[in-house]
Every structure is written in C-alpha cells, then in structure tokens.
C-alpha cells in the first residue's frame, strides 16, 4: 500500500499497485478487508451487548428509579445528538461515493463535515456531562439524588442507590460510545490525510469503506442508547 499511487490513464486491465501480491483480484482484496471489519464489529456488538444486558436487568428490577433518573437527563440534547450522528453517517456514504466517482474536492469536504459532526456530538455530550456533574448525578462520594419523585407515583421517592446504578450505566455506556467516537475521529483524520494526498481512487478506496463501516456501527450503538437511556418514561 506504500506505493499505491495509481497513475492516470492506466488501462482497465493494468495491474493496480494497490493490489497486494497475496490476493488474486482487487475484489477479493476488498471483500477480505470488509469481512475482517465485520468480524471486528461482531466482537464490538458482544462488547456493547454485555452492557445492554446489564442495563435491561437493572431496568427491569428498578424500573421506577430508572425512570426518575432518566428524566433528569436532557432528552432534547440526546435527540439533537442523534440527528447530528445521522447527518455524519450521510456524509460518510457521500464521501465514499465521491471517491468512487473521482470527486476529490467533494471527498475532502465530506470527510471534514463528518469530523465536524463528530466533534459537535462530543461537544453536546460534554455539555450533558457538565450538567450531570453540576447536579451531583455522577456516581461516587458526592452523588445525590434525594427526594426525586418516581414518575407516575408522586408520593414515592426514587431510591438514590438504584438511581446511582442507572447513572453508572449511563456514564459507562455513553462514555464508551464517546471513546469510540474519538477513535473514529482519529481514523477519519487519517482518511482525510490519505485523501488529501490523493491515495484513493474509484478502484482503490477500501480504507474509506472500512472506516465508514466503523462509523456507521458507532451510529447504530447510539440509535439504541438514545431511546434506552433518554426516553424511558418521559410522558407526564
């Protein structure tokens, strides 16, 4: 891949320098890379799956406490972040399309937009975390969740110990997701650099497709985190 700059004007059947010697065809190379990424994503699904499982068990046991704790998170910020991530997923597919159709300018713009959306997401997340710190909703010594009524049961207060479990899951799940976003931003910075140098062509842009798969996966994790953490029991 180090000398993969494809000279313009090569015939359709010329050997593509991006084709590594242990692959028979470019398609086989592409499919292998994609399959490897999907296997990695399978491990990621099980990784997040364990957390979702813990969440489901505790939510079932302490539903009222979880609903009260969930109501203290700003659902509008979570919804905005969902929209931001969805837009970033669109710019990713547009970036790949730009590479497939040799539109270098559009490719660069779409990669920069993707990174801007990703950074916006982390900024909104930071605002949310700051609110939680200000409200002493971060699990630990200074945690406080006293006299918060359980939705639907105004005469009952949520058990702070059970609410703390919700916030522990909230911070671990959204924190791990945010870590994935930060890694994704690093990947896309590298993709932007490679695109800037003109490394990607309609024949060879596998790193863009692999990076895109990762980005979309992180989007899917958020698609589940949003309703499960923010929208448990919002109705009045």
């Amino acid at each position, binding site marked *: 891949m180090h000398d993969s700059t494809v000279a313009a004007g090569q015939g359709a059947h010329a050997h593509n320098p991006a084709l590594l010697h242990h692959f028979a065809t470019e398609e086989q190379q592409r499919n292998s890379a994609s399959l490897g990424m999907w296997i990695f994503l399978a491990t990621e*699904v099980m990784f997040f*799956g364990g957390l979702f499982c813990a969440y489901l*068990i505790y939510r079932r046991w302490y539903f009222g406490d979880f609903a009260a704790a969930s109501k203290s998170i700003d*659902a509008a910020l979570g919804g905005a972040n969902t929209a931001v991530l969805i*837009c970033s997923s669109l710019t990713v597919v*547009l970036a790949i399309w730009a590479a497939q159709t040799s539109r270098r300018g559009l490719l660069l713009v779409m990669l920069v937009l993707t990174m801007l959306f990703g950074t916006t997401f982390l900024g909104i997340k930071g605002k949310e975390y700051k609110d939680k710190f200000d409200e002493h909703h971060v699990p630990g010594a200074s945690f406080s969740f006293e006299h918060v009524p359980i939705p639907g049961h105004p005469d009952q207060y949520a058990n702070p110990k059970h609410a703390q479990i919700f916030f522990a899951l909230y911070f671990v799940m959204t924190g791990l997701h945010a870590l994935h976003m930060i890694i994704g931003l690093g990947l896309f910075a590298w993709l932007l650099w490679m695109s800037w140098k003109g490394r990607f062509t309609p024949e060879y842009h596998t790193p863009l497709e692999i990076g895109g798969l990762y980005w979309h996966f992180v989007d*899917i994790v958020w698609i589940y985190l949003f309703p499960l953490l923010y*929208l448990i029991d*919002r109705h009045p």
Partner: protein
Amino acid sequence: MSDHSKSSPLPKYFAVWGALLAGTYITYEVSKIDLGVFNAAVALIIATTKALLVALFFMHLKGAGEKLLKLVVISTVFFLFILLVLSMADYGTRAWH
C-alpha cells in the same frame, strides 16, 4: 460490496437519511405519550428500524452476495439474541426478587 449499477445511489442515500431523521423525531415525540406496556416496545421497534436502515443501505448489507459475510452478520445477531433473551428469561422471571 458497492453496487455496480449505473444509476446513482444518491437518491437512496438521501431517502435513508430523511427516514432516519423522521424516525428520530417520531421516537422523541412518541416518548411523551403514555402507551403503557408498549412504551419500550415502540421505542425499540423504531430504533431497530433505524439500525436496519443504516446496516442495509449505509453499510451495504443489502445486495452483499458473500455467504461468509452473511454468516458473520447472522451469527452476531444470533449470539446477541442468546445473551439478551436467555439472560432476561432468567432475571426477568425471578419471582422472589
């Protein structure tokens, strides 16, 4: 992976994007209404629809011909199903808790 048809995939991409934004708006608004036991079900159905849209069209699972890739994806869903459903079959039915 990518479809090699002549037609541009752009209308499809923008349609999926619009559907995803609509789904987000709907799930946000619906959460304000009390549907009783269906609250979680509706939220999860909308989330799963959105996840499928992303996986099928943005991650190009639709039209992917490779059997090995299908095997990996189906195994993933299957083992996630075992993890969640069997765990909940236990913890969800502990009457003594």
